[in-house]
């Protein structure tokens, strides 16, 4: 018995088609954003849709936040720009 899957024919028409499904989520060290307390799988309070419109950013201190939340926080700091979680200097991780 032969199944076409192992058939070495390289004919395009004879190719098997595989439609796979994957889900993505943020790689974060916490479930919620430390600033807005909203889930990372969701979005910050200002946004309506999670995903590319409301991305996460990581600092060098390894803490992450919604980009909108941390930018707002940094703008409100007058002297030093510190991570709100660990009080280290905030630097965006490349």
């Amino acid at each position, binding site marked *: 018995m032969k199944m076409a*899957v192992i058939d070495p024919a390289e004919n395009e028409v004879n*190719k*098997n088609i*595989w*439609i796979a499904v*994957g889900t993505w989520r*943020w790689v974060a060290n916490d479930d919620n954003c430390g600033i807005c307390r909203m889930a990372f*799988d969701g979005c910050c309070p200002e946004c309506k849709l999670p*995903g590319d419109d409301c*991305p996460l950013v990581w600092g060098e201190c390894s803490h992450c936040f919604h980009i909108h939340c941390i930018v707002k926080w940094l703008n409100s700091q007058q002297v030093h720009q510190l991570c709100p979680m660990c009080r280290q200097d905030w630097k965006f991780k490349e």
Partner: protein
Amino acid sequence: MPLSNANKPVLHEQQRKDEEKLPKKRKLTDTVSSVNKRIKSGTEESTAMTESQKRANFSALPSPGSNGVHRHSSPLSNNKPGTTKKLVIKNLKEKPKVPENYQQETWGKLQEAVDAIHTSHAIKSSLEELYQAVGNMCSYKMSSTLYEQLKQTCENHVKSNIEQFLADNIGYEEFLKKIDTCWQSHCRQMIMIRSIFLFLDRTYVLQNSAILSIWDMGLDLFRTHIVGHHIVQNRTVDGLLQLIDRERTGEAVDRSRLKSLLRMLSDLQIYQEAFEKKFLEATDSLYRSEGQRLMEERDVPEYLLHVEMRLEEENERLLHYLDQSTKKLLVNLVEKQLLEQHISQILLKGLDQLLSENRTTDLCRMYTLFSRVKNGQKELCASFATYIKGTGRIIVLNVNNDPDKDKDMVQAILEFKDKIDNIISTCFGKNEQFVNAMRESFENFINARQNKPAEYIAKYVDSKLRAGNKEATEEELERLLDKIMVLFRFIHGKDVFEAFYKKDLAKRLLVGKSASVDAEKSMLSKLKQECGSGFTVKLEGMFKDMELSKDIMLAFKQSVQNEKTSKNIELTVNILTMGYWPTYTPMEVHLPGEMVKLQEVFKKFYLGKHSGRKLQWQPTLGHCVLKADFSGGMKELQVSLFQTLCLLLFNEGDVFSFEEIKQATAIEDSELRRTLQSLACGKARLLLKAPKGKDVENEDKFKFNDDFKHKLYRIKINQIQMKETQEENVSTTERVFQDRQYQVDAAIVRIMKTRKTLTHNLLISELYNQLKFPVKPADLKKRIESLIDRDYMERDKDNPNSYNYVA
């Protein structure tokens, strides 16, 4: 006016000065020609007379603008001493006198004429002569005597007529005929007499308001002496009623006689007191008993038909002989006795039947008739609403738990709605009241069963939006979706709909079973319009993910073009954003090496593009198109990923047991059983199971079916993926309930935060205002308990019935 002409030179100067005193001058000429004018005016009046004759039967008062009155003003002299010649008109030296016996003689002549009229003989003297005689008598102040004499003569005549009506042995029809003839001739005679005595009528009678005109006098005499006689009156009225009664039973009667006699009563001004009252009483009792009898005997449509006919008949009666003043009373009476008294019984006995049999003409009739009576429409509307609720409940509740009935529920509701809509627009005149009642009733019965109708509506939409639903064109589908939206509007728990709709939409998109993108988008925009963008945000996100995935795949294909990744698998990946889609429980399965490798290549590519993310594969949602080589030729198989895994196994061996397959693929037990069942026990059997049977047992062995035959080249076996499993259904419902709990919690905290302190009852009522889905008070109580446990709020120490917010 020859005299005034002669005066002209004399008055030449004067005329200029007195131009504005023209009436004065007229008076002068009036006096001079008064004798002439009397005769003249006589002829003028005779033309006026013919006019009034036409109206004689109505016995109107003489018209106010009558010129019958002459003012005898004193002659005014314009004489002025001057040079011009005077023309003096002197009064007669001796007053003209009439002969001594003039009055007797003249009256004799007139009486003879009156008698001749009464006895219908030819009048001896000429009418003009008689007319002048009357005029002369009036001029010589004999008017009052003349009037009295005339009245006496007429009275004698009228009185003499009474005898014929008092005889016992005449039937009512003959009696009516007699009285009619008598009345007709009386009228004729009175008109004639009045014509002769017109001068009297216009002068003497007019000047004395207390005296009746000749015509009215005639009526008065007839009333007092003939119809006023109680025997005659009773017999007349009874006769009339009997005649009308006979007509009501369907006989043809002489309508002109009825008309003439009723006119007589009106003219004599006794129509209301003598006839109308009795007539209405008779009508009332007739229709009361008829209404009661027919309500028993006939079924409702027949009865309504009869009522309609009766009303029409009575209207015709009004048109043909009854006085118009009776109209309102009579129609009201018929409506009251035939309809108003029976409204509730008619509705109880017949409405449900008419509605369920969709008898539009009968319903039309019912609506029109009920609109005529007070409260009719209201009652009809109320019963209509009760019917909708009752019938709807039967469709929705499914007392016997028959799964087939549940499957057809939405279709049945849609058909029912169509029917009711049709009835409202064709029979009930699109009455706003009825439309509202319909809406209310639909809302009532659809929500009589919690959650399930919403679920079935979502599933119904799914079945219509799925590929392969070729029964409808795009316009038809669009119309259908509109109708479904109407039902959707009635549903209270819209979150249940959303959950199931989302679950089905996800499958349609991921398994590629959506019938048309346009239809999907159109449904989405309808939902958005109905519930606002908050409701559809996630659904829109799902479409967005599909679009993004397409872009990613384009980029991926370009990047792997050069690498020799896989010779015979073409991979497409749909990347989902967790938040938008239904939650899927991740499942680990064993994929063949080649597939794992391909997956890894994609994963590397994707994460390279999107840093900070991790990718989770969802094997439950994957599907494949496989090329398979059977002894009967190549086939293309559309299968789920799990089916693929099972099938691929048979490339390495001939026979596998259930346990072996389970170990090799690592598919979850029940999922694997379902998968193998679909491959070995369905319509297209790619695998052979031993022993045969419907269910997959642990010891079963499976063998590849090399002799597989099918008339099609491309075979779909992955319907199994679209099917909803019991677990799926339960978890979807549970997730809705879970979400509701969060919403309840949030609402309680929101309310307590603003109010700080609130009694239990007030809190519950506020919650019902805020929550958009049905909840039981007991469930709310549980949530309150839970929040107290979690220190969001506390019971008041003094008053156990009220709560305090804990900050």
